[in-house]
């Protein structure tokens, strides 16, 4: 009240602790952690969601397996093209990796849109922390939930279709998976920036999700794509990682050359996507704020 009087009388404001202590930073890790904790708490309020998200991808993808049964015959051509003779085993691991791709697009990329729908975006943006921290927190939380859902989905799918994967190569699989998640979050930042500007997430997200899913070799090998599309596919972290993860998980063989090649590729893609993602996100956020568009639908 006293401060308000001073403000209205036009006198100089005494330096308060809140003003002197605040120094803008690139990332506020405490804020990121708090956002992650908040997001996880919200997720845990709906435990049935974990089961649903573990089952629904199987329902979405099962038609592909049934189609393979109907038209595939003895799978001679598929085996020649992919190097794998078991279509179910080939595809289920593809669903596992694709669930991280979907998560990075739908959960992280759209995070601010969901906050906007919940009416909390403006309050969140009023917090004296870098916006990047808010995104990082959301990314960490959704990676945890995606891991629980993807693991449950893999377990269900293995049970339903009677398939399994090598445990001996789980180490390199996890390393490649982490590198892929890091690269995918760069893509999420880019998408988040675009969604802040364009608002309507259904169309944009559907488009990005569909294109990236077509380019990721979930139920077909990369060699089934047209030649030009193969090059584009390898610019997708999910495609690069899936090829290696599938090889390790199905063959049970650790090939150091494939492992290192994949890590280098994912490292370069991470640098690219994070640079473009951060620049896009910051520019979009500034653009929207300058125009007072933040809370608009």
């Amino acid at each position, binding site marked *: 009240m006293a401060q308000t009087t001073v403000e209205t009388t036009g006198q100089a404001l005494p330096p308060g602790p809140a003003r002197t202590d605040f120094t803008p930073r690139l990332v506020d890790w405490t804020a990121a952690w708090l956002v992650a904790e908040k997001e996880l708490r919200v997720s845990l309020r709906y435990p049935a969601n974990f089961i649903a998200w573990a089952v*629904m991808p199987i329902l979405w993808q099962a038609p592909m397996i049934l189609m393979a049964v109907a038209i595939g*015959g003895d799978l001679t*051509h598929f085996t020649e093209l992919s190097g794998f003779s078991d*279509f179910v085993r080939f595809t289920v691991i593809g669903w596992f990796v694709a669930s991280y791709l979907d998560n990075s697009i739908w959960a992280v990329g759209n995070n601010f849109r969901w906050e906007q729908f919940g009416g909390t975006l403006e309050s969140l943006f009023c917090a004296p922390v870098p916006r990047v921290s808010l995104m990082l927190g959301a990314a960490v939380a959704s990676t945890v939930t995606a891991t629980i859902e993807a693991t449950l989905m893999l377990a269900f799918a293995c049970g339903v279709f009677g398939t399994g994967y090598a445990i001996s190569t789980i180490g390199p699989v996890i390393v490649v998976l982490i590198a892929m998640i890091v690269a995918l979050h760069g893509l999420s930042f880019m998408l988040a920036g675009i969604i802040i500007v364009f608002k309507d997430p259904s169309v*944009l997200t559907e488009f990005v999700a569909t294109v990236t899913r077509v380019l990721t070799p979930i139920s*077909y090998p990369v060699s089934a794509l047209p030649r030009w599309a193969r090059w584009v596919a390898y610019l997708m972290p999910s495609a690069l990682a899936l090829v290696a993860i599938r090889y390790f998980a199905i063959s049970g063989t650790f090939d150091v050359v494939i492992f290192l090649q994949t890590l280098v590729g994912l490292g370069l893609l991470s640098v690219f996507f994070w640079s473009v993602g951060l620049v896009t996100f910051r520019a979009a956020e500034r653009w929207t704020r300058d125009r007072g568009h933040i809370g608009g639908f």
Partner: protein
Amino acid sequence: MTGNSEEDGIHERMMARRNIVTELRAASAIAVKQWRVEFAYPLTVLWFVLLPVMWMLPYFITGVALTGAMQSPALEASVGTSDWVSYVSIGTAYMGLTLSMIWGTGHALRREQNVGTLETLMAMPVRRGTLVWGSMLHELQHGGLGVVLQLVASVFLFGVSLNAWGVLPALAIVALSVIGLQGIAFAVACIVLVAKRGWMLTEVLGDIMILVAPMAYPIAVLPPVLQYISVASPLTWSVEGFRGCLMYGLAYEGLLRAVMALVILDTVYLTIGVLMFMATERWVRKRGALAQF
């Protein structure tokens, strides 16, 4: 005072005009309103054109990877045609219409609730069911246009051949299909009205219906339990009939069987759906839970 009596007069006149023409006009206005909302987002229009092709692509690429050709001897052995591209293209084209009908129509009331217009709509002097029929009309136009776009794209991009003589019988199948799907849409609307955020239940319901429908494979490849569910779904007969007509024209042998099955299933599904909706709507209104989130 004069204003009030005029308003009363208008209200009474509006209530007195409640007939089938009024209901049709209201349903049509709801459909037009939804188109206007969609066209307010320019990217939606672009995506609407691209979506049918993008949906078909994974099926097409997987099919080519599996068979290495445009013919499948395995499919020929089970359904009598080796042309898997036409079989899958026409089947999946129907999926768009189904999803629009179940999702779009069933969740229309929730959409209105989210934007704060549900109570205003419910206060209109029209039957409550008209709100759902109006959404259905829009989804039929939206999804139907999507089917046309996907079929045209399949003809030009994947070399699918359609039998022109089968177009009219196929449209008759669509008309019969819409009735049964509307029954399901009413049931979905009930879930949404009661559970509010019942999207997960409706999603699973829709996914199971699509899984057991012979969109990209004959039902013979399903496990026996799912085959029984498939036979009891109007979607199964709609897809079979629609595809059979467009592939074989008037020579399609299963047409009569599909029509008979759809007539029976339409009667059952629509009756149950309408009764459920009437009871749910009354229940929700009595509890004053219409606008609750």
